[in-house]
């Protein structure tokens, strides 16, 4: 008798960190994953300008001043920034002043560096995944601009499953959405709960075998312990409770929670809330959020072994 098992490795929220993306590619091989998924938020948030000053380059980062005398030193610094999810941008003093005043110009620069990094990743992945028999899915999340999709589409070995139903093996279908419910930052891929619910229903209707289905939804379901985040005030500062600790509140999506309650798929793969690493059961659905420590160069993930109609095992990893 042959026992069918698919080993699935899921990570999320790498946020532009080249080191964690490279670790993801290594993990496919080392963990012997049949399926590997990045669940959303693949682009970074911050840009560090490096000023050209004659024969030298200068940057200020994390309260420290850096001076570079040659290309090697500069590339090492840029590599270090990339590992932590930052974007390095070589510029002049004049341009930097413009960036500080001109939001549109800043957005254009961001777009340029973000897409540049995604292109590098696509090339790297195509090289490193060659010959591996794994299915690799990389989905943008609510933090990622729409232009990223076009760059991902060029990959030979990674598939963007956004808004589609895919078969990850002979028994498990996966539907994917990188939207999040509305956040205080009001991002392009934030969606009101009503629209999110409709979108999910539309995708769910494509699933043939719901009891073996996987929901790869970037936002976690509301009310599960994997959606706890510090409550923020109007200045986006964490509110402290009376005990001096953060006030953790549920920030997940009600539409996703309702959909999971209604359809009861086998598995929910979620991210979005980096500090809410963990799992919970909603009825028969096992929901997991591996969290994210991308800025420390750690790849948080979860290895799941799926057989027909059940999850044979799961293990949260930190590599």
């Amino acid at each position, binding site marked *: 008798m042959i026992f069918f098992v698919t080993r699935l490795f899921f990570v999320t929220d790498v946020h532009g960190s080249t080191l964690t993306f*490279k*670790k993801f590619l*290594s*993990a496919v091989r*080392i*963990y012997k994953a049949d399926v590997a998924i990045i669940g959303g*938020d693949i682009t970074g*948030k*911050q*840009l*560090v*300008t*490096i000023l050209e000053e004659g024969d030298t380059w200068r*940057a*200020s*980062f*994390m*309260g*420290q001043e850096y001076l570079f005398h040659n290309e090697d030193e500069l590339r090492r610094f840029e590599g*270090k920034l990339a590992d932590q999810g930052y974007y390095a941008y070589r510029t002049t003093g004049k341009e*930097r002043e413009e*960036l*500080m*005043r001109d*939001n549109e110009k*800043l957005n254009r620069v*961001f777009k340029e560096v973000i897409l540049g990094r995604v292109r590098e990743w696509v090339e790297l992945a195509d090289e490193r995944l060659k010959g591996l028999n794994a299915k690799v899915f990389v989905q943008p999340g609510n*933090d990622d601009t729409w232009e990223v999709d076009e760059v991902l589409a060029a990959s030979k070995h990674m598939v963007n499953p956004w808004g589609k139903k895919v078969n990850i093996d002979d028994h498990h279908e996966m539907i994917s959405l990188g939207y*999040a419910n509305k*956040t*205080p*930052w009001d*991002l392009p891929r934030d969606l009101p709960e009503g629209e999110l619910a409709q979108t999910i229903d539309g995708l769910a209707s494509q699933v043939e075998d719901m009891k073996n289905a996987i929901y790869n939804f970037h936002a976690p379901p509301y009310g599960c*312990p994997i959606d706890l985040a*510090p409550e923020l005030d109007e200045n*986006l*500062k*964490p509110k402290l*409770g*009376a*005990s*001096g*600790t*953060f006030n953790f509140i549920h920030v997940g999506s009600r539409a996703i929670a309702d959909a999971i309650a209604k359809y009861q798929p086998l598995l929910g793969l979620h991210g979005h809330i*980096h500090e809410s*690493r*963990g*799992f919970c059961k909603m009825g028969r659905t096992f929901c997991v959020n591996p969290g994210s*420590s991308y800025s*420390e*160069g*750690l*790849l948080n993930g979860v*290895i799941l072994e799926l057989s027909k109609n059940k999850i044979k*095992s*799961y*293990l*949260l*990893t*930190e590599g």
Partner: protein
Amino acid sequence: MADESVSSLFTRKSSGLIRSIAPHHSLSYAVMNMAIGGVLFNWAVASGIYLGINDVWASLLFLPFGIIPGLAYAYMTSAMPRTGGDYVWTSRIYHPIIGFMINFYATMVYFIFIAAFGLFAWQIPIVGMVSGTGLITGNASLVSLGSILLQPTFAFIGSLIVIVAFGLLAVFGAKIANKIAIGLFLSGIAALALNLAMLMYYKSSIISGLTAAGAGYKTVANLAAHAGYVFPGFAALGTFLGLAWVASNSIGYTNVCYISGEIKDPRAAKSTFIPIFGSLVIIAILNAVTMYYTYLALTPAYYHDLSYLWVIGSSSYPLATLAVPNIYGMLAYGHVNLALYLIDGVLWLLTFASFPFAVTYVFTRNIFAWSFDRIIPSWFTKVSKRAGTPIYAVLLAVVVSIIWDYFYMYTGLPSLLAYGAAGWYLAWVIVGSAILVMFRVRPELLELLPEAVRRKVSGMPVISWLGLGTILISGYLVYAYMMPGVFAVALVFLIALLILGPVIYAISYYINKQRGIPVELARKLLPPE
């Protein structure tokens, strides 16, 4: 959007980027993690054990001792802000089994303190209000009742009730408790202020009352001398050893490291450094002020003599109504205003109750982490839907605290506390060693740290020197706790606890492997190439 305060850094509109918490907020968190109520009993232990200790100076001298490990924790946290603190650093630097060992050990030690606080809550404010009311009103029955309630069996049962009550509150009242927790903390300040004010105001009548009760200056001095103790005046050695008891009062000052934010920049570090050092300063001042006025009211010799008689369990200890010689219970001998006395008692009781709430966050976080790592069953992470609290994790805390509470019956409170605190700092020795060797064993982690501590001095990075300092200071504190005498039962128990962690880890590893779960991959470092 340009962040002009850091001139090279630009931030785009994206979720999750939150500003670090304000230093004064994290300071309040840090102080609430420390036990203000400890001032009522720590000094009775220290004064009785360490010959010549100057409690006021000892309070202040701990400051430089506490700074080194505080710096080490703060810098390590600034590099790895949200990933479980010392549990994760030690796991990454040494091995997950070592990380679990120290984390399990430290968590069990927390439960010792919960047990101790249950006992003190019973003995000091609860029974203190009963017998104190008797003393103030001249009701001998109440005084007798108080003495009965202090007997070990009743103390155990009484503290059991208190611990279970704390647990029930933590499970079912967490939401309400969070709203009033700042009030619970402030009640400690109010309790102390009121206590010291009454101590000074009623000083003469307190001394008269103690004398009438057979516990006057000369009587106590003679009793102590008969038991082999003569207060020698203040001495440097006793003071330096006894500062360990400020250390036990300060346990938790680094817990703020677990709440740092996502943004790593030097300004964010203020949210870590200020609460660590701020809370150390605050607790040092609270202790110093308490003991200054205690000495002023009672005289150092009297307080030390009395503490000695208590700590050795002498049958000559003259104050049957006071399980611990404490400045709250002593007020009743001065026939102070009854209403104020009872108000102070209630405030102290609330102070004791606040400690378990403050530490609930830390130990439940640890239990969750063990459960996610498959070391303990996953049902420990189950959260009560009605109360929104991790019911099984809190239940575990209550059960283990009760076990420690029972253990007190065979060792006594001073040794229970001493060994609890020693255990905590023993865990720090191991954490310090991990920080020390990090630059050799895991140099890539060093890269995450700020330049200020990556810089080398005599061939070793500054952070490693801080790790070495942590080892030496923590090791010294362990020695200071153990120095007065080694209690075999307690020592065996603590060593067994140290071994229990790796045993649990090994068993869970074996069970998981049998189930086909690839646990060896859980913390396997992934190569980028």
